[in-house]
């Protein structure tokens, strides 16, 4: 059973639950206490000891249900009921059957191998056990990619002795066509069962690898050109990135022991020495948390990137004190409330309905911002502009951008276009770049993560 538990832990890791060795030891101790008799209690036990968040509990629950539902061997058609009955009566010791059984009904199968015996007897438990044993021998839990399904099926069937079964079928075709037919059917059924077992194993153990591979591809794909069916996956990925950033930056770093003497705490700490200050206590330095003002172009091809960027910025509550977001194409509006209150899909739809689909006019949009919200920028604010800086040859109003840069702590420009194209056509990037603290390309999820991570890190 321990072997099974270990396999379950591996499956749990595959499902995205981080199971450390210490936790697996705890789980085994707990299981030793509650036993295997009651499946609901066993499930609760695993949920208590292994999963440490709500999401993990859900994933582990699904994994548990999948793991402990073994694929049932397919029901074979029961023809010639009487003969099979006799078979199962004399079952139990396949070796003895194969060699010593000479009674009338079993005579025709006296020369077949153990696998054929088993199939003929239709003993489902025996078949399940045999598949499980063969899976173990073929180390099925090592399966990682869907391309490996075929090879594992072959290995399992080999381990079960399919060669002997084939020989039996060949023999029987000549001597006993009816038996051959039955064996052939049973073999088809067996193949199906093994295929199910392998698919299930792939689902259990291969998920992590498959997901890693997919995420790796997704992280490096240009955000503006991903297919609609990948949008949902990308949202999940962005949420993961947000979680990672939160974990990295939400814990306060070691405070600096510098600044003014904290007289009160120093006196208290040194009371034991009659107030002679052996140990000093310093006033703690107050550290700002990031304040972000984001201006996002939502026209044309930049819209997708803005969508994901806004989603990321707005899921950083623990790290970022205050986010004000603005969206623009021809003119500019504030969208913070819409993003806070609605689901990402609805929010984006509403934003697009309000300002999207116009041709972008950076000058006019900056003008709107200066008149409406310039006072939101304080010396603690990082201003992030996301856009391709293609202003359709209208006045870029770089002077406003200069004033924004002067008021703020940092002005960061994220451009989804490659550096090669900056400054060509109607791109005003070089003029804007003069006033920005940082300009970086931001076309993929990976670049997005790097950009946001750097912005938050400057406050640490």
């Amino acid at each position: 059973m321990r072997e099974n538990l270990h396999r379950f832990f591996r499956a749990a890791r595959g499902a995205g639950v981080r199971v450390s060795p210490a936790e697996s030891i705890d789980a085994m101790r707990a299981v030793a206490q509650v036993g295997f008799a009651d499946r609901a209690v066993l499930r609760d036990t695993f949920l208590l000891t292994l999963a440490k968040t709500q999401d993990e509990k859900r994933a582990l629950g699904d994994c548990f249900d999948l793991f402990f539902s073994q694929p049932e061997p397919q029901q074979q058609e029961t023809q010639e009921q009487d003969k099979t009955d006799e078979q199962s009566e004399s079952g139990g010791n396949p070796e003895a059957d194969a060699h010593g059984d000479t009674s009338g009904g079993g005579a025709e199968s006296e020369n077949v191998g153990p696998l054929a015996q088993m199939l003929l007897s239709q003993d489902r438990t025996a078949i399940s056990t045999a598949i499980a044993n063969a899976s173990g021998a073929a180390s099925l839990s090592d399966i990682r990619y869907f391309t490996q399904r075929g090879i594992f099926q072959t290995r399992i069937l080999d381990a079960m002795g399919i060669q002997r079964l084939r020989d039996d079928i060949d023999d029987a075709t000549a001597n006993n066509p009816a038996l051959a037919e039955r064996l052939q059917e049973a073999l088809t059924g067996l193949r199906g069962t093994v295929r199910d077992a392998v698919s299930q194993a792939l689902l259990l153990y291969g998920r992590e690898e498959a997901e890693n591979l997919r995420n790796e591809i997704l992280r490096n794909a240009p955000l503006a050109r991903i297919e609609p069916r990948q949008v949902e996956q990308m949202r999940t990925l962005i949420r993961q990135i947000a979680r990672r950033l939160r974990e990295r930056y939400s814990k306060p770093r070691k405070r600096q022991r510098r600044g003014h003497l904290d007289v009160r705490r120093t006196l208290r700490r040194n009371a034991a020495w009659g107030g002679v200050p052996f140990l000093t206590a310093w006033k703690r330095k107050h550290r700002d948390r990031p304040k972000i003002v984001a201006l996002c172009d939502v026209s044309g091809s930049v819209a997708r990137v803005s969508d994901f960027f806004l989603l990321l910025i707005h899921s950083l509550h623990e790290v970022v004190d205050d986010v004000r977001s603005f969206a623009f194409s021809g003119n500019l509006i504030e969208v913070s409330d819409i993003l806070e209150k609605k689901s990402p899909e609805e929010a984006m739809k509403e934003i697009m309905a309000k300002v999207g689909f116009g041709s972008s006019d950076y000058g006019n949009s900056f003008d709107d911002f200066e008149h409406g919200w310039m006072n939101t920028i304080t010396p603690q604010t990082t201003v992030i502009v996301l856009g391709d800086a293609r202003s359709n040859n209208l006045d870029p109003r770089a002077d406003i951008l200069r004033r924004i840069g002067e008021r703020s702590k940092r002005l960061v420009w994220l451009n989804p276009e490659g550096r090669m194209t900056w400054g060509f056509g109607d791109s005003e990037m070089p003029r804007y770049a003069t006033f920005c603290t940082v300009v970086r390309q931001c076309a993929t999820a990976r670049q997005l993560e790097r950009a946001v991570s750097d912005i938050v890190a400057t406050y640490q």
Partner: protein
Amino acid sequence: MADTRPTASIEAVESGLAAQGYIASRQIATAVYLSQQIDKPILVEGPAGVGKTELAKAIAAWRGMKMIRLQCYEGLDEAKALYEWKYAKQLLYTQILKDKLGEVLGGAQTLGAALDQLHAFGDVFFSKEFVEPRPLLQALEQPNGCVLLIDEIDKSDAEFESLLLEILSDFQVTIPELGTVAAVAPPTVILTSNSERDLGDALKRRCLHLHIGFPEQRLEERIVESRVPGISQTLRRQMVGFIHEIRSLDLKKLPSVSEAIDWARVLVLLQANELDHEIVKDTLNVLLKYEADIEAATPQISAFIAKASRHGVFS
């Protein structure tokens, strides 16, 4: 009398807690049972008011143990949680013993000799007598074991979490001047968190993780029944059904079990026999704590009452 023997089964935990008026779901009972069997703290997470703190109280009452509570807040440090030296007493004693010290050191000719003589007395002023035990140390010193409730751990700083690690895994603390203090009897430790911030993995790893959410209809009815015995069955079913409907709304603060119990008490006080629009509207402020929430829920009251009553008929 304290009962330190481990409990026999999950059912025993369930009935024991029920005897104290705490209706535990199967998962809660399993967690309590396991924590006693394998000596692990339980980390309880969940929304406010679902009975996280009550669980610790119920366990303490059921097992007849003392409950020691440590309320966490920002800036909590080891001097307030673990131990502190009794500075005043130390000062007073040095003053009183001044003359005595003169006597002791009287024979010494040189400074070195005096120091040697002083060393011979050891650290008299840093001994157990001068330690003021705070909740964590108190919990370790209880001879019959106790229930240690570390409430709202998410409110404390990340440094405080690290301080807890030694206690949680080995039931001991190290005081530099005294050495390691191990628990006389391992306490039952319950930590609660409202998930205001993510706790560290090191802390989570040392605990059984129990999430208490809003209970199902039946369970909540039983909880209300045990806490507010005077309420009639139909009203109970209706009000719990109504609260379940309310929870489906998008509210700032969803009403939880404690609010349900309060509301049940209010309804009994007002001698209501069944829910109607008028009484719900008047008492809605017991359930909902924000003006905006009340505004959002008010137009739905009639529909919810109708639904809740229908639910009562069929179940």
